[in-house]
């Protein structure tokens, strides 16, 4: 689930004139940067060019091939001559006769709203608490971050132990405490999405917490002191002073959360391959493309729909970042 999010930008906290410069070497480096030697330029070109080529070759080209394949019927076996062009048939099918598609779109949206409403807010709250440098802070930090680093197989197993209808901890607990009849956490399509969201949120909270913690450490302490001198309480200090200073982190969190919601996959796949109430676009893509099913064309069409949705968010993000850089 951990995405390759950029490390939090620090410019917000180290504008010239605000407090002592944190990295004494920064000024010197900047001045040498202006006089790039020939060797420097070649090195830079290589260090940026090779990754760029790799990304284009390994990400952008396959993405374009996916778009092309989405207009074909192909079982992934045999040469390219066995590819049959069928136009937009797959897109029409997805929206008209493929029952899991509409729930999948809805579930991805629910996933997104939930991630913002609960784990993101909770992660921010935990970060603010941990930022106060209380004793044992690193212990709490490890506890909350733990779920993020657990392997996907283990996470699935843990939640199976908790949610299993017949042998699960949760139903056993409810039966003892409230004498409740067993609840079908995984099988009832009205509740299984939310049961799984708790599991997903469990991981997302730790991740967001770490991002905000890094951001909070970068906020200049003099801002807080100034707010305190002006008589602002802790809540007011946070909402009026610290939170606005966290703008770059907020953007990163926004993007990370959107991306996580769009590519949510592992937990539902482990539970029931993303069926019966747990449909997600990513799971539909996988179940169509992998295995003997090999509906490469149809799966590609679903993947393209997902790509288009992601592009909307990516464009908003990039344009915001660029505008920020111009200012």
């Amino acid at each position, binding site marked *: 689930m951990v995405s390759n999010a950029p490390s939090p930008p620090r410019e917000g906290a180290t504008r010239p004139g605000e407090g002592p410069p944190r990295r004494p070497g920064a000024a010197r480096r900047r001045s040498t940067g202006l006089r790039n030697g020939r060797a420097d330029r070649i090195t830079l070109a290589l260090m940026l060019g090779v990754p760029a080529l790799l990304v284009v070759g390994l990400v952008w080209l396959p993405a374009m091939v996916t778009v092309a394949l989405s207009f074909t019927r192909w079982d992934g*076996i045999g040469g390219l001559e066995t590819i049959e062009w069928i136009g937009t048939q797959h897109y029409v099918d997805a929206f008209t006769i493929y*029952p899991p598609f509409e729930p999948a779109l809805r579930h991805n949206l629910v996933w997104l709203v939930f991630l913002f409403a609960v784990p993101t807010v909770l992660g921010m709250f935990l970060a603010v608490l941990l930022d106060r440098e209380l004793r044992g802070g690193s212990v709490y930090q490890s506890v909350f971050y733990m779920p993020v680093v657990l392997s996907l197989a283990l996470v699935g197993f843990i939640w199976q132990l908790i*949610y299993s209808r*017949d042998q699960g901890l949760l139903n056993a607990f409810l039966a003892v405490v409230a004498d409740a009849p067993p609840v079908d956490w995984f099988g009832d399509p009205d509740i299984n999405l939310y049961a799984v969201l708790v599991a997903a949120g469990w991981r997302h909270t730790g991740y967001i917490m770490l991002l905000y913690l890094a951001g909070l450490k970068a906020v200049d302490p003099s801002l807080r002191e100034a707010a305190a001198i002006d008589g602002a309480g802790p809540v007011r200090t946070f909402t009026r002073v610290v939170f606005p200073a966290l703008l770059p982190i907020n953007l990163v969190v926004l993007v990370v959360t959107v991306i996580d919601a769009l590519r949510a996959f592992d937990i539902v796949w482990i539970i029931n391959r993303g*069926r019966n109430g747990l449909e997600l676009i990513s799971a539909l893509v996988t179940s169509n493309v992998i295995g003997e099913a090999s509906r490469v064309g149809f799966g590609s069409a679903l993947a393209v729909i997902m790509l288009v949705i992601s592009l909307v968010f990516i464009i908003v993000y990039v344009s915001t970042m660029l505008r920020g850089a111009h200012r």
Partner: protein
Amino acid sequence: MHHRPVGPPGPRRRTLLRGMAGAGALLALPGLAGCGSRRDDPDLVTMASNRANPAQREAIAESVGNFEADSGLSVEVNTFQSTAFQESVNNYLQGTPDDVIGWFAGYRMRFFAERGLISDVSGVWERNLRGAFTDQVRDLCTADDGKQYMVPDSTAPWAVFHRRSLFEERGYEVPATREEFVGLCERMRADGLAPLASGVREGWPAMGTFDHLNLRLNGPEFHLELLNGDHSWDSPEVRSVFGAWAELLPHHQADPLGRGVNEAQTALVRGEAGMMLCGMFIAHSFPEEDLDDLDCFAFPEFDAQIGADAVEAPIDGFMLSGEPRNPEGARELVGHMGALKSQEIYTAIDPQALPIHTEADTSGFSALDAKVNDMVVNAGALTQYMDRDTRPDFASVVMIPALQRFIRQPDDIADLTASIQRQKASIFGH
């Protein structure tokens, strides 16, 4: 902090690389499997086995060991977890597959034969296996070009399983007809049991119920044609299957959609459920000392005209990759795996497997094995299982969600069959 680790950093980097290679191999699981160093050895045959249970590994090793001793060739067995293997088999067969590959008879084998991904083994049938199998089994291993592409070695049939002790204790009679079956279910419910254990979270176990009801209500011929795409799914025949299923649904264990098939088997083992429609693989989940208590009967008759002698008996076997590195050795090996002795050795060790050789010695069978074997031998027709008798994309992408939806809302059958038919037309092209 400041002193450097003793020794050059080389080994570390190598460890890291090895780790990365390991991770890569995991991702590309079977793709890299064949890159062993002994590949050039002319006396080596490689084999991919999808039988990964401990008993199955042991049985394969035993049988392969005999082959090595008899032929002087050496065999490298690469074992893959069955589900993971199925998910990557298309890529695997197009890469550098092993010489011999464990797989399933029927549609899923024919498909690979048609695409030229596996080799003709009719020579082996001619030479070593004349009269070894019934015509039915032969048909299941034959592609549309009339040639055989698989050598079968065992089967794990489906039936309604139950605990003999429970039936004796409560005086339950084995039901032979629909009325008796429903009556027994009602009695079990009155006794506080879940009559039919049911766990369909993974989806595919629900196919067994559809298959059996369709076989009993519409007959094996219609069933196979339907799965082959020859009939409409939006038909009175198919609706009658779902109708009969809806009548049985209340007798299934509650909330089947959240329960894995293993958990359902556990309910039968523990005596919380009375019966379970399942494959012989249920034997794996019974504790060894209780295996004697496991009994079964054929899924009862629903229509006297059609009877109850069609048996769902998925057949496993071995095929040859498209361009085996060692074709002679590989043909010898598949011939060996299908031979009577190997089948007997293999099936004696793997509790779910029965031999399908016509001359297989049944005297050493357990009572259960003998009973199931009789069903197979006297079967009017053999079917494989829905996901082996039809296109895999139709089975997994259309049928699993459809069957799960039916279990969720059994009251809108007409809408369901219409939806299946629309998707079937799109996939089959008619």
